[in-house]
Structures are given as structure tokens and as C-alpha cells.
């Protein structure tokens, strides 16, 4: 039989732990711990941002090393793609001009641009089960829960919690995230749910719609503060069964979630 010989110091430490946890949970649930967390994050944010960026730099360096063999081929592909995009862009500019003229003639209101707030990523949640980012902008600069957060024009998440100096973003790849969206090409609507890892699934797509790989998925603007038309990703694969009412599609994000350093919060129109 094992002897349970706990030293008084060990018992005292265990008691302190219980006290810390109990008071912490209580303060957290009542919202009193929020300002403490907020100030701690704010005070250490320069140091955290520096470490976060250093990690990004090291990660990029290794990415470059691993992809060096493919650079020549990728370069050629990008040149071709660039030429194609320049051509498309020219056509689109023309179409936009025509569109604006027609809208003016028809009396449509010109839609204003988004009001954006730049924010730096301070840190990321330590456990993979919860995909949160902490940003260095909070209630002080007008951030509130429900606002969309973008990176390179693509939706990456929604503000979930705000404090005075900082805010927390729930990434769209988190399993608890749900975003209303539609497929740009077919106009089929559905909901985007986060999956394990950094992937997403679009559910509730009507069966009669043809969904193709590579189709673009954008926000529908239904519900909440999410504006319409922000890109979410592209269709990676489609799962369609005849005996189902809806089809589902796996969505590939356009953003590499490991690259997030500086993001934009959409404050409104």
C-alpha cells in the first residue's frame, strides 16, 4: 500500500491552486476578470507582437526553403495568371464604368466603401480546439461583437469578445463558427461551418443547383453585422447524394490562416 505523505507546503500550494481557480472562474463569469486580462494583454502586446512576427518570419523562411524547387514553375504559372488577370481587369474596369453610368441613369444609390480598422494580431489561442485570435483593437476604437474581420479582402472571422483595448476573433474555421453564404456563380445559398483543422464545409445547398469545384463562395449578408459580398473561399469538393435534400461542399479558404499578422475589422459602410 502506498504511503500518502503530503508535505504542508504541498497542501498549501494545492489550496492556493483551488483558491485561484475558484476566484478566477467566479470573476470571469461575472465579467470582473475582463479588464485584468485586457490590461495584461495590452501591456505585453509589443513583446507578443514581436514574437508573433518573428514566428511568422521563421515559418516563411522554412516555407521558402521547402518550396524552392517549385519556384520556377510557379513563377511561370503566376506570369500567365497575371497576364490573364490584367486582361480581365481591363474588361472589368470598362464594365464598372458602364455599370455606374447605368446605375446613375436608373437612380441607384452608390454603395459606399467599407470603413476599415487595421489591427495587429497579438496572439492565438493556445489550444487547437478553439480557434481564436487576439487583436490589439478594442471598444476604445469602436470594435464590437459581430463585426467581420478580413485579411487580403477575405473573411477570416467574426469578433466574438471585446474589451477596452483588445478583442477576440473567432476564426471561420472554428467548429462553432456559422456564416451565411452563397456561391457567386450559381447564387446558391447555404451556411459555412468550420471543420477540424483549417477547413470549412458549406451545408444546406439546394440539390437542384450545380456546384462546381473552384466556384467562389462569398458572404450573403444575412443576419448579424456581416456585410454582403466578402470572399470566404472556393469550392474544393462537392458531396451530393440523391437521397439527400441538400448537398454539401468542402470549402478551401483563400487565406493561409498561419499568415495572419495584420488584419482589418469592418466597422461598417
Amino acid at each position, binding site marked *: 500500500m502506498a504511503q500518502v505523505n503530503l508535505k504542508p507546503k504541498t497542501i498549501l500550494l494545492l489550496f492556493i491552486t483551488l483558491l485561484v481557480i475558484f476566484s478566477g472562474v467566479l470573476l*470571469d463569469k461575472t465579467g470582473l476578470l475582463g479588464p485584468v486580462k485586457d490590461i495584461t494583454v495590452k501591456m505585453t502586446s509589443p513583446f507578443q507582437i514581436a514574437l508573433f512576427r518573428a*514566428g511568422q518570419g521563421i515559418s516563411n523562411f522554412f516555407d521558402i526553403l521547402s518550396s524552392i524547387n517549385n519556384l520556377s514553375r510557379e513563377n511561370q504559372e503566376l506570369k500567365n495568371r497575371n497576364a490573364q488577370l490584367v486582361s480581365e481587369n481591363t474588361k472589368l474596369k470598362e464594365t464598372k464604368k458602364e455599370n455606374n453610368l447605368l446605375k446613375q441613369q436608373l437612380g441607384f444609390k452608390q454603395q459606399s466603401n467599407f470603413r476599415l480598422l487595421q489591427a495587429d494580431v497579438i496572439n492565438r489561442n493556445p489550444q487547437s*480546439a478553439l480557434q481564436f485570435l487576439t487583436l490589439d483593437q478594442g471598444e476604445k476604437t469602436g470594435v464590437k461583437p459581430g463585426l467581420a474581420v478580413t485579411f487580403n479582402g477575405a473573411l477570416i472571422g467574426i469578433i466574438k469578445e471585446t474589451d477596452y483595448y483588445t478583442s477576440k476573433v473567432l476564426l471561420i474555421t472554428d467548429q462553432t463558427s456559422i456564416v451565411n453564404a452563397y456561391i457567386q456563380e450559381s447564387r446558391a445559398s447555404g451556411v459555412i461551418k468550420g471543420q477540424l483543422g483549417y477547413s470549412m464545409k458549406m451545408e444546406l445547398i439546394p440539390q437542384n443547383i450545380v456546384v462546381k469545384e473552384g466556384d467562389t463562395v462569398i458572404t450573403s449578408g444575412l443576419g448579424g453585422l456581416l456585410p454582403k459580398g466578402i470572399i470566404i473561399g472556393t469550392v474544393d469538393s462537392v458531396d451530393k447524394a440523391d437521397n439527400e435534400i441538400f448537398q454539401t461542399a468542402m470549402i478551401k479558404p483563400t487565406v493561409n490562416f498561419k499568415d495572419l499578422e495584420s488584419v482589418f475589422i469592418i466597422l461598417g459602410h
Partner: protein
Amino acid sequence: MRNLIGIPLIIFTGLLQITLLPHFTAFNLIPNIALVILVIWAFLRPPEECIVWAITAGITLDLFSSGTFGIYTLLFVLITFLISFVKQNFVSDINFPFKVLTALTAFLLFNTFYFLLQQFLNLIHIESTILVPIDYLFKLTPREILYELIAFIVILKPLEWFNEWVSRHEQTVKIPTSK
């Protein structure tokens, strides 16, 4: 001396966990290095010291994480205490297989209970849906444990050397004062 080095070191590890490590994911998972260090430290040092480290690491991660305050502290202290307890009362020879097996159990306990506590006690600040436990426990947890086990094997020896170095330094500091 040991806590003077150890406490800032474990706070720094907590900060690395949320800033640097997210860039070095495998299968999109982040290994919990703070937990790995605490498990190794529990093999090397007495329980009182390990619990102080566990409280420090727990509070650091609880302050910066998005879940409810206290879960990291609770699990870290519980795991380091259990390892110390088993080490003192049941095992005479702490060899490598024992360390690996204990670490594996510790990682399994941590990842499972972290998730279950967040889920079923409804301690998280997410009001929308509940995660699917089966999905998480059977898909994500084994990968996370494997990743942490690899990190454990990599860090084990350097941390043992660090412990020896600190022990030697402490002895050399003590000799002149004992004269």
C-alpha cells in the same frame, strides 16, 4: 535559485505557446509545450516546485486564452501532482519507457479533460453551437497527443541537462556559504 530561473522561463514558454508556436503547426495543431515542460519537470523535481511551475504556467495561459479562467491551472496542477505522487510512491526506477508512458497518459488526460471541461461545464464564451465530442476526441486528440509526445522526446534530454546544470550551479553556490 531554481524558481528564480524557472518561473520567468515558464512564463516565457506560455508566451511562446500563443505567439511563436502557432506558426509551426503539424496537421494544423499546436503542441502544448508548457504542458510538455511541466511533465518533464515533474519527473526531475519535487512536487512543491512542480506545482509552483504549474500554477505559473496555468495562470499565464488562462490569462491569454479565450476559454474560461482556471482550466489550464487546474489541469496543469492536477497532472504535475499526479506524476509526482506516482513517482514518489509507486516507482523505484524512473526509466525512459516509464517516462514516455506517463507522458502519454498525461497528454491524453489533459487533452480529453480540457475539451470536456470546456464543453460540458459550458464554461466557454461561445453562445452558438456545441462541438461534436466524437469528432474532436477521435480525430484531433490522437494527433495532438502524438505531436506532444514527439515534442516531449525532443525536449526531454535538453531539460535533463538544464536540471543538472542548475543543480551543479546550486552546489557551487552553496559550498562557500557552508564554510
